[in-house]
């Protein structure tokens, strides 16, 4: 495999045969061809390789949720506390290596107390399992390349006569820092287990999780839903002990062929009702555009509560009100799970005179209590000044008026001609000049009733003679319909 590096086509990966001929990674293709004239060369596709690494990482999630990518070809798994589930560290390592080998990958693996030590051992001592607190002993025997420093520093170490990590460690720290930099010393400490550098897992650690593995992979919808219900009950019990409820939940489905699918739901208020959680997942799964395909079955299903909040327990006086609120939240959550949270909306006020900006629609699941109050435009006893049905953006209309600044006599909207029988207005609304880069023209709004009793909300854009002196005529728009 070749890719462009440092202005030349170099080898990035090679098979055993090529190595046997004396080729190595980093060598230019020209040099390589000089040694092996009939060399088969394939352009590396680094994006595809990365995606493959991600998919293997997804599969590794079945062993532990803490998986970090170590591109281009490595993965780091934090198996703290997980090894016993697989029969011990040795068994876990063997299982991972065997399953990946079965899929055609050449795998090297190792287990150690720190990420750097594990990485180093995996490369240079495949299969090693460092006993607890004894990483340093194994590491010191490895060559300095095992520190995975940049090539210049590694070269400098070799030139200084330091060939193994042990030799480097024997030197004094001040000497090393002065010659090679503090980063190199930190990496050395990390490799020897003296410094901690936790891995950055791809997914944030969930607050609570429950999982179930199957000896017989589960395929049926009933089985999947029943498992989710059972996992929801376990999760609910955990959350109850801590007095919290979930706002966001994720379910991971691990297929026996290695593919992993993630389904997420959110709630408007924290919940730990197992029935509700199971129902929301059922709605989401039924509504998926890309159906959940079990293939030959799921080996494992994991349910995580990725975001939790304290649940406030209300005093008994407001039981029915709280009950009703919960019902409404549950309805919002169900509809949001099925149709998307962007389709289930609540109105919130906005402090502005501009009609189209005076209210906003926010997803009901994420709506926060409002600071502002709704303030009506009309006075008591008056007719509505704002239409119930609103057009955004407003629709252009052709208006025939007696005077440019006067009310319309007739107007044409969507090819239909309307005769104006009654007009109320104008209501002048100045577009708040501080909001826009170029000033928007003032609008004069008219409430209009036509010959059939239909009522419209029209506005003229701009004040003729003042704001638009050169324009032939001002534009008119229809922005809403009244009763």
């Amino acid at each position, binding site marked *: 495999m070749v890719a462009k590096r440092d202005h030349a086509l170099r080898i990035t990966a090679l098979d055993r045969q090529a190595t046997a001929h004396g080729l190595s990674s980093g060598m230019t293709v020209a040099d390589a061809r000089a040694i092996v004239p009939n060399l088969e060369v394939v352009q590396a596709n680094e994006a595809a390789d990365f995606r493959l690494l991600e998919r293997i990482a997804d599969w590794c999630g079945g062993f532990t949720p803490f998986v970090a990518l170590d591109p281009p070809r490595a993965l780091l798994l934090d198996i703290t506390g997980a090894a016993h589930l697989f029969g011990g560290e040795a068994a876990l390592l063997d299982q991972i290596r065997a399953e990946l080998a079965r899929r055609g990958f050449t795998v090297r693996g190792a287990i150690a107390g720190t990420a750097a030590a594990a990485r180093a051992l995996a490369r240079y001592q495949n299969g090693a399992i460092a006993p607890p607190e004894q990483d340093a002993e194994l590491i010191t025997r490895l060559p300095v390349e095992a520190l995975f420093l940049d090539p210049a520093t590694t070269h400098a170490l070799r030139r200084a006569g330091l060939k193994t990590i042990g030799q480097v460690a024997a030197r004094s720290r001040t000497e090393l820092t002065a010659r090679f930099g503090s980063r190199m010393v930190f990496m050395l400490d990390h490799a020897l287990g003296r410094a901690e550098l936790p891995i950055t897992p791809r997914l944030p650690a969930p607050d609570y999780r429950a999982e179930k593995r199957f000896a017989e992979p589960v395929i049926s919808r009933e089985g999947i839903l029943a498992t989710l219900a059972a996992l929801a009950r376990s999760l609910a019990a955990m959350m109850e002990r801590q007095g919290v409820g979930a706002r966001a939940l994720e379910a991971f489905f691990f297929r026996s062929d290695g593919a992993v699918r993630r389904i997420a739901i959110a709630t408007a208020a924290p919940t730990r009702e197992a029935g509700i959680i199971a129902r929301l997942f059922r709605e989401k799964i039924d509504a998926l555009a890309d159906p959940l395909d079990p293939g030959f079955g799921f080996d494992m299903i994991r349910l995580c509560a990725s975001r939790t909040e304290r649940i406030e327990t209300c005093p008994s006086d407001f039981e029915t009100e709280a009950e009703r609120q919960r019902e409404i939240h549950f309805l919002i959550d169900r509809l949001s799970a099925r149709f998307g949270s962007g389709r*289930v909306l609540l109105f919130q006020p906005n402090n502005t005179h501009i009609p189209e900006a005076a*209210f906003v629609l926010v997803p009901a699941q994420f709506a926060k209590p409002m600071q502002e109050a*709704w303030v009506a435009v009309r006075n008591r006893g008056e007719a509505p000044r704002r239409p119930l*049905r609103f057009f955004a953006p407003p629709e252009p209309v052709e208006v025939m008026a007696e005077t440019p600044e006067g009310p319309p006599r007739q107007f044409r909207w969507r090819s239909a001609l309307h005769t104006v029988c009654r007009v109320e207005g104008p209501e002048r609304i100045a577009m708040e000049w501080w909001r826009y880069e170029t000033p928007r023209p003032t609008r004069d709004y008219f409430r209009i*009733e036509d010959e059939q009793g239909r009522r419209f909300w029209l506005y003229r854009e701009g004040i003729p003679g003042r704001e638009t002196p050169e324009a032939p005529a001002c534009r008119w728009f229809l922005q*809403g319909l009244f009763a």
Partner: protein
Amino acid sequence: MKPAVGIRAKILASLAKAELETAAKRERTPLGHRAADACLGGGLGSGALHEIFAHPGHEAAGSVFAAGLAFRASAEKHFLWIGQDCAARAFGEPAATGLLELGIKPARMLFVRLAHVADVLRAANDALSSAALGAVVIEIPKNPKVLDLVASKRLALAAARSGVAAFLLRLQANPEPSAAETRWQVRGLRLPADAETWGLPLIEAELVRNRHGRTGRWVMEWNGDDGCFREPHAAHSGALVSAAFDRSAA
């Protein structure tokens, strides 16, 4: 999806049973208009399906009628408005400021905006299963095939079970058989020539079908301050038509 004949028979049977059980105990929401309320036997029944047809061009009047009824039926609870993207493009979207001007608190409305009418019906059935809402307004433009007699019976049954009032707002639609308890035809009216100011919303509402009583036609105005429909302020000598002929339910 066409339900099997067995399921259809079951739905009809349960609907009949539910109606008998709850007809006596159901709440009635008065509109505020004496003659209309008298004809309705006290008001519109909660836990039932009501259909509102807006005359072509009078979609806003139909919407105000539906919004007012939903507001009155839901008392202190929330009400749900289910709209469709195509209706928003054609007739505009419900606006919070418009509701506020009508005296309806926008915070009480939950708005669901969907793309397909099948989704609208599914959401409506789901919403009607919960007694936490006071009313549900379902906007349906034109005459979609999925809204057939069985679908409307399903809605009516769901409403009957939960006690929530359901309003089908039919826009640019032709009347067709449905399981609704009442059917209205609504349009806006011109203010009388002698009226000086721009008055309150004036609506002509014709009750064309009533399962539990007679039909009629009334002119009402919506009073936002009191939150009710009322006889219009000025006397319209020619316009008040209260035709009470006995058209039995179809």
